[in-house]
């Protein structure tokens, strides 16, 4: 809720979701929490956008969904990374690296 929280750069949502799920099965809320924890509350996933994204990834075959129970015993939908999902994660990471390197170069030039 402070200004230090940034909204996501467009196009990185899938990357973050896949990365989050790559550590093990997570429900939707778990994904938001995972991202907030890892980025020390800097990157904040718009929750309303997260769910359609999860379903789309399921449709593409990157994720598999299954109903299960969380640690408090509540029924929740858990998402797991599939083989094609981890493949997709790899390419998304690569693309991100390329883009960010390029952006870095641009910034460096401007600064000089």
């Amino acid at each position, binding site marked *: 809720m402070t200004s230090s929280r940034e909204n996501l750069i467009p196009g990185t949502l899938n990357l973050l979701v896949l990365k989050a799920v790559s550590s093990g099965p997570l429900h939707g809320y778990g994904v938001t929490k995972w991202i907030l924890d890892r980025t020390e509350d800097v990157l904040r996933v718009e929750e309303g956008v997260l*769910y*359609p994204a999860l379903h789309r990834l399921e449709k593409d075959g990157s994720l598999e969904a299954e109903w299960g129970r*969380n640690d408090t015993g509540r029924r929740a939908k858990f998402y797991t990374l599939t083989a094609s999902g981890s493949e997709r994660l790899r390419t998304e990471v690569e693309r991100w690296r390329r883009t960010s390197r390029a952006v870095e170069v641009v910034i460096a030039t401007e600064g000089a």
Partner: protein
Amino acid sequence: MALGEGFRRLFRSTNDIDGEIREELEAHLEMKTEDLLASGLPREQAEAEARRLLGDRPWVVEECRKVRVHIKRGKARRERLDTLRQDVRYAARRMQKGPAMTALVITVLGLGIGVNTTVFSALNDWFFRGAPGVSEPDRLVALFRSFGPDERIRLGHLSYMKYAEEVESFTGLAASRPVELVLEEDDGTALLEAKLVSANYFDVVGVDMMLGRGFLPEEDEQAGTHPVVVVSHTVWRDRLGSPSGLTGEVIRLNGVVFTVVGVTGTHFRGLEALDDVDVWVPLAMEATARTLFPIWKSDRWSGILTVVGRLVPGVTRDAAQAELEVLAARIAEPRRQTGRKGSIVLDPNVRTQEFVTRIAVGRIGPFAGVAGLILLLACVNIAGLLLVQAMERRREIAYRCALGAGRGRIVRQLLTESLVLAVPGAIVGLAASRWLGWGLARYIAPGFQLPLDSHVLAFAVLLGVVATFLFGLAPALHVFGSTSGSTASFGAGRLFGRGKALSALAVTQVGLTMLLLTVGGSFVKQLRAADDNDPGFETENLLLIEPDLRMAGRDESEVRDFYNTLVDRLAAVPGIHAVTVAGNAPRVKNRIGWGGRTVRANGAESEEGVRVEYNDVHPQYFETLGVEILRGRGIEASDDRTSTPVAVVNQTMARALWNSEDPVGRTMQIVRASGDSDPIEVVGVVRDSRTFVLKDEVPPELFVPLEQNGRANLTVVARASGNLDAVAQVIRSEIRSLDRGLPPVTVETLADRVADTLAENRSWADVASGFGVVALVLALIGLYGTMAFTVSQRVQEFCVRIALGAAPGKMVGHVFRRGLVLAGLGSALGLLISFALTPVVTAYVDESLGRMSERPDAMIVALCFLVLTAAALAACSGPARVATQVSPMEILRHD
């Protein structure tokens, strides 16, 4: 019912989806709220914050729902595919169990689809495809004058020019006229297919030019001033040596040097369906073509000039039609006889126009009819076979129903089995149609092609699908009905109805087979008979030589000189024993003036005119052909313009005019509308010969000296020995040395010529007999299906009868009796129709074969009866065996 259920399922599934999404979001909110509570917020605030963070909930639900619906559909599709795969696998296994039956069904279906696809390809090429190599062919229409419904007359050149000048609905009107031109090269000549065209032809038609340009307006303004030519891709490649650019290349056409200004693209072979045009020349160069009917800037000859227009974009055909009608009312020349002006009609089928349309209807029409019928019969027969199979499988199907398979599922499976048969059937059909296409090309025209395009493929697929339903649905519905009861038994009444229909069908098929076999057989027999007739002259080693003088621009005396010189020169060629010239040479196709004269004998008992065949011949005619002179003399060189008119007659004519008296020295006159001819003295009688026709009776024939009559296109006949090909080669070079501008000369042996004239009739006989054989196979299958069905239905009855003491042989007799009754009924029916149809078919036979009998041949009819009876017995033997093998135990197993 199925539909309602489907809807319910659809709704239930959307409800499921929504519930799932809501539950997922609820879980999210609860967990978030709990975490917020844990961080110290009061419950109310925590819940509100959690909801706020989730954002616009209906939107989220909607977005998720869209994705979920997609997922669901994909799953359903995969499931359906799985079922299909299962069904196909099952069908394939069944097919493997009865490979003979499978092959039979596929072949029959392939034949049916093949014949239909061929017919469709032709129609497709003529009516539904634009001309290849033409841009936006849809905007082209052909123009005709018309004085009444169905009447279409081509335009004269003068009226064409008037319309072209004034009409506004078209970007232009183009005119063309087909002619032949002789291409002269250093080492020979070639006859080219040419079109005389208006200057705007290539623009209006929209031809892509590969090189150069079309014609300029000034090149078609003044007669004979601009010898320019556009050549086809083929001429550019074969005659010009494929130059990469045009730098004043020239070709000699009919003795005139033409400059090549353009080359058309590869695909353009002319606008009309059977065109294979080599060169295009401006209409203004018409005189070069030396045509008998000059049309340049006059309306004297209509019916020659083809006019097509390209509609201005956005103008409809109706609008153009309306404009032309107004124009016609103003500028059309009234018809001489009636004074009516008539109107202009537009025809969108620029590729076919009236000529090909007539061919299409006349030649393809009957094919299409028979083809459709064959496919229908094939389907019905296959349905019969599958029906019998379905009967055999009823228990299997009943079990599957009992085990919970839905009725729809089973029907679908049976349809899949049909489809599994239909797909290879369609492939076989497509291959067969390619093959038939080559045959048709020989039969219709050399330029005729059957291009395979998406339309044709779609048509074959469509036929396959339609066929699947036709022959797959009957057994499927049948099973559907039979499983509706609690037991797997059939209702007898319904089956009896179907059995009757099958019987009627079997009778029809036998009838059709009888019809095709008798007509085709009679045809073949008459052709054979024609071959066996004694020609009355020596047919071996005769060469027919036909120089084409039409385009050489000679007057009558020059023509006479040409033939006289040629005969003298050929007589000196080693290997040639005798040479002559005749207006009507043996079996020459274009018999101009053939048809006969009426003559009257002077001073005979009967002064009445007699119709005789007429032939003008050179001296040595009878000697060259080897026709025996029985009395008097033949035609001699001394019979010229200055001497008395003389004639030689054949035996039949001698008998017809003078009975038993000697005609030599008597005179006769040719009866003409303008008054009778001078008396002609008969100087000889020759033996009857079948010079022109192979028919049974020899007509009365009259021979007169060519020198005393004479005409332009004649045939030189030479009797030669040794290597005839080598002699023909020498003859060609002799003719070439006489005139280098003549088109290539036909030199053919009489045997080849006879084979040619017979070929077309043979192809008809082939088609009729081919269809006959196909029909026979179909009828066999039909009879088999009917009998098998009857037996399978009556197994129960047979069992009871046998149990009550009837001999199994009686059952067999019953089956055969029934089969023979069906075959007999069908044969009688077919015979009846063939009596009615034979006169129609004989009308197609070339007159040189003589008039065919208008009754089917008795021997052929007897033979067909035998073949059909044998076929019927063969078809019954399978089901009959089944009938003998039933045992009373069957009853127990059946119910």
